[in-house]
């Protein structure tokens, strides 16, 4: 059913129109990749794709992405279950702490790990390091899902004689499907696009090859072909995740799930679980933080660039907040449209950003350079284009945070408001918007977190002279001034803890109230 199909004129056009804008925006990098890739000609495409080296990259990329997704999902699921469903001591503390690794930029943690042992500069090392930095992307939605899950299913399973494991697999896991799926998809696409960490960990993937095409050959054609392969790799993942949530309708008008789920007693295992949490904290936070302290202590460049600290914080904060606002605005219609209007087009518009999300930042940034200088030269290297680039890069993250709350808002509520005479926009603003506010909060927090760390698009598209914490960390580490970089990196982590905290609170409160 088309949303508001009783009166075909007003709402559907507004609605579809507002979803077309982000969809058009997101297809800009896609168009750019196609334009550049076709310059290779058919023979060139064949030569580039069917080579032994491409096969090696393909294997590496898939092994890395799939392994990290599996490991990160396992850690995320286990941590979520422990903090939500067991009597582990200090639950509230662990609940927040488990999300904090999101605040540590991957290039800081990978630098730290690669310094510890050359053994870690390998595929297994990369899997370990990247899993430790991405598991919160699974942990947060799954923890929220566990809170919202109906314990009634578990009661039934247990009453039918299932043991705890079987009960978990049959009654709990299926309810967590969408949360686990969207988290895992984010990790997977993140891995396809990861570059900074891999350059330290000596693993070659399509993304490192794309960088090479640009950096060494100045060859945007090969880079575009490799990007096309990368996007093709995102397709099955995006499709799989879509299937996972297909046919699920969870909207409710009232607030169900009155009873809190029972907590499992850990008993003798308590010590081991606690030890596991300490270890996780140590590995995911302790190691990178120790590296920053070490940089500060041994480096001679310490103290350089202190005058840039305030401008950098300022640049980071206002760019990330504005970027988060713009991205969330674009994400709202996409999410609502895909939930309420289950057509192919809406589903496609909803999935498109996930496919683009697998593209490395440099491709998206160059696409925006190309598009803005040809379409709107007056806006080039102004804030507007940069904010749009942020939206293209991070829409899927906003979508997945919004979706959880948007799915619980019944479209009937808005229909009722319309039948009582509210105009479409007013009905949206008074009924739907307040109901998805927690989702918007969570989305904004996650956006701020990601944009604060963004580097490539910021370097290319920010107004000349604007600096951020991330650009300063980059510029000092590029010149091997690690001690000068340390305060900026530490501030980057500190600034990021604010959105992580907001995000954790939002996500978990939201689970609690539903």
């Amino acid at each position, binding site marked *: 059913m088309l949303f508001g199909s009783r009166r075909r004129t007003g709402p559907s056009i507004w609605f579809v129109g507002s979803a077309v804008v982000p969809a058009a925006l997101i297809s800009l990098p896609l168009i750019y990749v196609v334009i550049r890739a076709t310059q290779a000609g058919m023979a060139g495409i064949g030569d580039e794709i069917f080579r032994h080296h491409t096969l090696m990259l393909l294997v590496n990329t898939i092994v890395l992405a799939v392994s990290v997704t599996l490991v990160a999902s396992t850690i995320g699921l286990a941590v979520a279950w422990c903090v939500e469903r067991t009597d582990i001591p200090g639950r509230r503390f662990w609940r927040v702490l488990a999300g904090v690794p999101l605040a540590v930029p991957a290039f800081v943690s990978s630098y730290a790990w690669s310094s510890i042992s050359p053994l870690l500069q390998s595929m297994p090392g990369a899997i370990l390091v990247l899993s430790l930095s991405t598991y919160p992307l699974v942990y947060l939605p799954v923890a929220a899902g566990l809170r919202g899950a109906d314990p009634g299913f578990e009661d039934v399973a247990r009453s039918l004689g299932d043991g705890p494991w079987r009960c978990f697999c049959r009654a709990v896991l299926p309810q967590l499907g969408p949360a686990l799926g969207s988290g895992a998809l984010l990790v997977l696409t993140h891995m396809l696009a990861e570059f900074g960490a891999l350059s330290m960990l000596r693993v070659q993937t399509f993304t490192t090859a794309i960088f090479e095409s640009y950096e*060494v050959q100045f060859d945007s054609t090969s880079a575009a072909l490799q990007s096309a392969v990368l996007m093709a790799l995102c397709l099955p993942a995006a499709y799989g995740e879509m299937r996972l949530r297909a046919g699920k309708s969870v909207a409710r008008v009232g607030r169900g799930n009155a009873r809190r789920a029972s907590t499992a007693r850990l008993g003798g295992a308590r010590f081991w679980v606690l030890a596991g949490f300490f270890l996780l904290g140590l590995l995911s936070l302790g190691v990178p933080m120790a590296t920053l302290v070490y940089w500060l202590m041994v480096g001679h460049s310490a103290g350089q660039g202190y005058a840039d600290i305030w401008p950098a914080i300022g640049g980071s904060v206002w760019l990330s907040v*504005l970027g988060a606002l713009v991205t969330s605005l674009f994400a709202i219609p996409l999410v609502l449209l895909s939930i309420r209007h289950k057509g192919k087009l809406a589903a496609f518009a909803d999935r498109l950003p996930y496919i683009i999300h697998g593209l490395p930042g440099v491709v998206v940034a160059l696409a925006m350079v190309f598009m803005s200088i040809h379409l709107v030269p007056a806006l080039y290297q102004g804030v507007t284009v940069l904010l749009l680039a942020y939206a293209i890069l991070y829409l899927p993250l906003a979508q997945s945070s919004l979706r959880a709350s948007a799915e619980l808002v019944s479209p009937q509520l808005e229909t009722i408001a319309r039948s009582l005479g509210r105009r479409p926009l007013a009905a949206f603003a008074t009924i739907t918007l307040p109901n998805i506010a927690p989702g918007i909060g969570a989305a904004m927090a996650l956006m701020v977190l990601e944009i604060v760390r963004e580097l490539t698009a910021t370097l290319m598209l920010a107004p000349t002279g604007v600096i951020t914490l991330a650009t300063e960390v980059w510029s000092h580490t590029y010149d*091997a001034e690690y001690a000068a970089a340390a305060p900026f990196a530490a501030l980057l982590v500190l600034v990021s803890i604010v959105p992580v905290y907001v995000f954790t609170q939002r996500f978990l409160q939201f689970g609690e109230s539903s």
Partner: protein
Amino acid sequence: MYKLDRRTLLRNGIMLGSTALIGSQTMRLAQAAESQSLVLYNGQHTHTTAALVKAFTQATGVKVEIRKGSSSQLANQLIEEGVHTPADAFYSEESPPLVQLDEKGLLSPLNPRTLKQVRPGYSGKDGHWLGVSARCRVIVYNKGMVKDSELPTSILDIATKKWDGKVAFVPTSGSFQEQIVAIKLTKGRKAALDWLKGLKKYGRIYNGNTAAMKAVEHGDIATGLVNNYYWFAVAEEIGAANMHSAVHYMEHQDPGALVTVSAAGVLKASKKQALAQKLLAFMVSEAGQKAIAASVAEYPLRPGVVSPFHVKPFDTLEPPHVTPADLGDVADALALRREAGLA
């Protein structure tokens, strides 16, 4: 009473946001209207360029806006921008990005007087880009893992079984491409191919020069093929006396003793040609060269200006007979790497 509800907040937020957007655009246009200013895309060491530009502004009163990035990233950006570029000049850490821009017809011819200020043979053959400072390829080695006497006299000897698992190299770095081309030009294509195959078999790939340098200093691996200033950058950071690694210069016109340059050019699309030429002239003036030499361990290319760092004096280097302009052909370097299974 003023009541702040969610809608007011949202509305005000949007208004504030759009004001900021429009405001910043207007500011940008206003800035562009000012004629006595230049936009420089800078891939060179941040402090080097900052010192240079400060001296330039003091001498001429011309303001320079610096956009920073890595040299090749900025070159790619300039290629996408084409004739619409807001940049007036480009200062690159290496010469190949400028060779690429020149091949795409994006650079202006430089003032011959400027080109004459520096040692001959280190600028573009057509005079479209200017060599500003030089550095050489070296082998860095961990002093605890290799004795001085064991070090090879030729770069070709390091791609052999004797060095199995002991050589860090960065096949994707710009200077490595130049190294490949230099071997090809001086020793022949087969020698270059065998060298690459040997490195693939016995060496260890790193994804960045800093990572390779760090690995040698840290003792992860015995030697590494990098540019000399990577060692000096780390030495500057932790103190030369604390270094576990040292620099080995090759001699006798060996391709391993290759000299490469940082370079600059003026964009053809710039509307401030004269002013941009003035900036480049300043880069190779005595004041400009001194500012550069003080901040990075590279050799000033203007005769008479000497690096204050403890580098091997420029005139005692024995580089192979190839010039930076010969080294721009990255396509052939890539073909060789592909043949050797390194790309």
